[in-house]
């Protein structure tokens, strides 16, 4: 590997200060939670960091605290902890299942919530070092090339798909994203946190250059909330989603009061299916309703030359995720 300097941050403030100092010294830096993805990118040269700011030594943001109105999940909670956390039972299934679906146990044991949500795309052009939008360049190689794994919603001028499993779950749960940086702390809604390529093709989220995503605030799910995360992958594990669906339903008696339905693997940001959510309100979940929701989900899909298969997959995934909850 290239020469590196590791800095063990003792706090988020420490980490941000180290980031600012590195930038001032003309050095590239990267924040590291679990570090597995970061090290890959450093070894491959698609991340040019000279300074690694290690967050494993940060004491903050490692807890899950549930109150009646709000749940706080620290950004440095590992995916293993999330997948099995005692406080995240019952209605939190979508988040547990999403966390459990990432990578492998070895990855989940060190990977963090923050790292998973902010990971860079896995597009094979970007990761193979092509000088594309995501690498600071000015073109997308997938749009007229090999785009089997690319976006069917929201694409343009970059057609990457958002690589995080936690992100659709958090969006479906109406999370607020907490960020800290040189200018202090701020909170972003999901709409503001995730960035479409049409807004800025070089990044996937609204974090400033030396800002850190430190955790989420989620309105604690009411009684009657059921949820699930359905992920379809090219082999049964250790793979990013071809298509995934995060569903959160607030059910009253047998009727759906509110619905959150968010797709992963199909758009540059977690893709909220607003029309499907509106359609579901007031319905009783049945096979027919699930089927209609699936059809509605793909009404505005815009496949590229080689990823048309994602369209029927998305429809089937939405339908089956809903049916899972109907049977529960």
């Amino acid at each position: 590997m290239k020469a590196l300097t590791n800095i063990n941050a003792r706090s988020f403030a420490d980490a941000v200060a180290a980031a600012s100092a590195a930038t001032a010294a003309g050095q590239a830096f990267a924040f590291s939670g679990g570090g597995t993805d970061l090290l890959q990118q450093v070894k491959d040269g698609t991340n040019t960091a000279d300074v690694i700011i290690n967050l494993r030594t940060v004491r903050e943001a490692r807890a899950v605290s549930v109150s009646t109105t709000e749940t706080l999940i620290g950004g440095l909670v590992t995916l293993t902890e999330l997948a099995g956390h005692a406080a995240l039972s019952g209605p939190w299934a979508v988040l547990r299942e999403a966390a459990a679906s990432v990578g492998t146990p070895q990855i989940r044991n060190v990977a963090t919530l923050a790292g998973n949500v902010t990971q860079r795309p896995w597009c094979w052009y970007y990761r193979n070092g092509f000088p594309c939008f995501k690498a600071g360049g000015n073109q997308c190689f997938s749009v007229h090339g090999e785009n089997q794994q690319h976006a069917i919603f929201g694409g343009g001028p970059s057609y990457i798909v958002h690589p995080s499993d936690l992100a659709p779950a958090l969006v479906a749960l109406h999370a607020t994203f907490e960020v800290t940086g040189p200018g202090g702390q701020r909170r972003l809604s999901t709409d503001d946190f995730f960035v479409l390529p049409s807004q800025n093709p070089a990044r996937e989220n609204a974090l400033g250059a030396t800002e850190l995503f430190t955790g989420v605030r989620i309105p604690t799910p009411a009684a009657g909330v059921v949820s699930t995360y359905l992920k379809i992958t090219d082999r049964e594990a250790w793979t990013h989603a071809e298509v995934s669906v995060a569903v959160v339903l607030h059910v009253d008696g047998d009727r759906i009061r509110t619905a959150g339905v968010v797709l992963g693997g199909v758009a540059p940001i977690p893709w909220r299916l607003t029309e499907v959510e509106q359609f579901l309100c007031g319905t009783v979940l049945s096979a027919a309703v699930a089927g209609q929701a699936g059809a509605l989900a793909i009404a505005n899909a815009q496949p590229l030359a080689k990823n048309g298969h994602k369209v029927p997959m998305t429809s089937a995934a939405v339908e089956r995720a809903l049916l899972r909850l109907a049977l529960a």
Partner: protein
Amino acid sequence: MSEAVQPLTTIGHVTPRVDAIARVTGQAQYTNDIKLPGMLYARVLRSPHPHARILRIDASEASRLPGVRAVISHDTAHVVWGAGAVAGGRQYNDAIKKTTLQRRYIFNNPVRCVGDAVAAVAATDRHIAEQALALIKVEYELLPFVLEPEAALAADAPLIWPEGNLCPDVHNNFAPVVSDHGDIAAGFAAADQVFEQRYDTGFVHNAQLERRCALAHWQGDTLTLYTPSQGIANCRHDMARDLGLEDRQVRVVCNYMGGGFGNKNQNQDADLITATLARHTNAPVMLEYSRRDDWLGMHGRWPTVQQYKVGVTNDGTVTAIQLIGYSGMGPYRKNAGGIGGLELYACPNRYRALSPVYTNRTTSGNFRAPSEPHGVYGIESMMDDIACKLGMDPVEFTLKNMLRPTEEQPFTNYSLDACIQLGVEKFDWQARRKAIPGSDTGPIKRGAGFSFMMFRAALGMSSAIVQVDARQRYTLFVGVTDVGPGAKTTMGMIAAEALGVPLSQVDVVSGDTDRCPYSVGESGSRTTIMTGMAVVEAVQDLQQQIAAHGMPTGDDVLTASATPSPTIEGKMRQCFGAHFVEVEVDTRLGTSRITKYVAIHESGRIINPQTARDQIRGAVIQGIGQALHEDLLYDPASGQPLTTGYYRARHLTHVDVPHIEVHFIEVDDGYGPFGAKTVGESGIILAPAAVANAIFNATGKRMTSLPITRDKILGVLR
């Protein structure tokens, strides 16, 4: 004449590997585990372009980096790699290597694929070596490139070699390889119906878990090379030839190897680069490939295009089989590029024209049963399709048309009927197979498929030495490296059985050309038969000596060696197999899941039931990976490989693999060591065909392209 067999004293009993303790404690030393004093580390710079002429290399800044001891490239190290490209793809033949027209060197100019080696660095530290690579300045003139074999044969295709893109045969003639039996025109004339279909199969990397590496060390004019090799004797001879040395000046050592799966039974350019750097620096040099280096710098199974035309009479008799085939060999032809399968059928009229073609993709080379799984997939998908169209059960169709012994061509024994019958029974073929393909209602559909084969179990030359000392401990010297099938243990068991002593009284010495005699090398499923025969004969010789002179006393040893070269007069010797697969296809998601897999094999007498069973199971799972997932996708616009590595190629994990049920039918045909045949490659041959046929039975859709990924399934279903 074959007889049902019973286990012998040692042979036929489950036996733990003799080196198992070393493997489970981390004590087993693989090449990269070795450290020599003063050892330097090496890295290879590789072409970022699919086809380019190197105009200039400036290594001055790299050479000045503190810690760098040598930088070599095509202008400073012009070393031929005889095994890297051979006329006709014919390995193990010095004469052909010397007359090969299109020579491959350790560094070539022009470079002909992304990943082609350009330069190499040796430094005191691997990180310094990597940093030095980044400082080497190379000026390229880009050349046009071509990625697909049919496109490479077009009149206006970019030339990868001056003579054109068709690979030459062993005589340096540029013509397709034709095999023509009977009268193909008459065969089609005699047919009631003629069917045509095109199939294509992807590139499948060997992907052994140990990344390529090599450690070279000169002492005067003697070279010691530690390298992961399936054949230390062949590797040694290749090194000597390429470096202008005598065999006795080269020692090759490999005690443990992390998988090979083919075409590592010779030297590699990594070995020559390392030896050259070691010579330049006068120090031991350890070259370590990254996983990407291995993917692009080693090899995998050739991608193919197969155009079939088959004639049948209405009662289901095949009258003519024609294959026009293309194999994408990459820019250098390491191996034959064969497409097997036609010879499984009795049909007397068979015509195959095979064009191995150069392309600007990574090199193709042997991978477990090199010519078989893709060809068997093609021909048996074709026949399965025809059987269905004629309203025949594919088993019935096969029994009618498969090759059987004849008076003109007898076999040492024949078990294909028995294999198929046992499979039908164990799998419950009649219950699981859908009489009408695709007839399950609902989106989740099940179906069953089957495939059959025979595969050579030929005899041939190899060597063994066996010694006994005064304590009646026997030492067996065999030139194997035990890449996974358990050759040390198998050879030890054969020796123990022949000697009439327990295995614990036998030590096996292997993996070092200074200590072991010639071995054919662990490829082509030959070690058990050929080296095993040598062991048997060496033991017979030793027993004669003991009878004549008595056991040795004091410090004396008795030594016997044998280098038999047995043949079978006029008879075919084959192993046999039939696989039965049930698959469940989710037709809304395109996912295929195997719900039952039964593999029936007749491989003569089974020496070690446990390692033999796991050779089949492992090979089957590799074949499932080939059928459903593995490929190497290139970006057509840039010629860049996009899916190198285990993540991108979606290699099967623990949760992906089904349980594989294996049944051996054991016979002793009177040949080979105790009647043993081959096992190592057999299991992979049938898996893609059986899985593809099962998917057809489940969905009613014929999948004509491997791998059968979900986008292809969803594509045909819409």
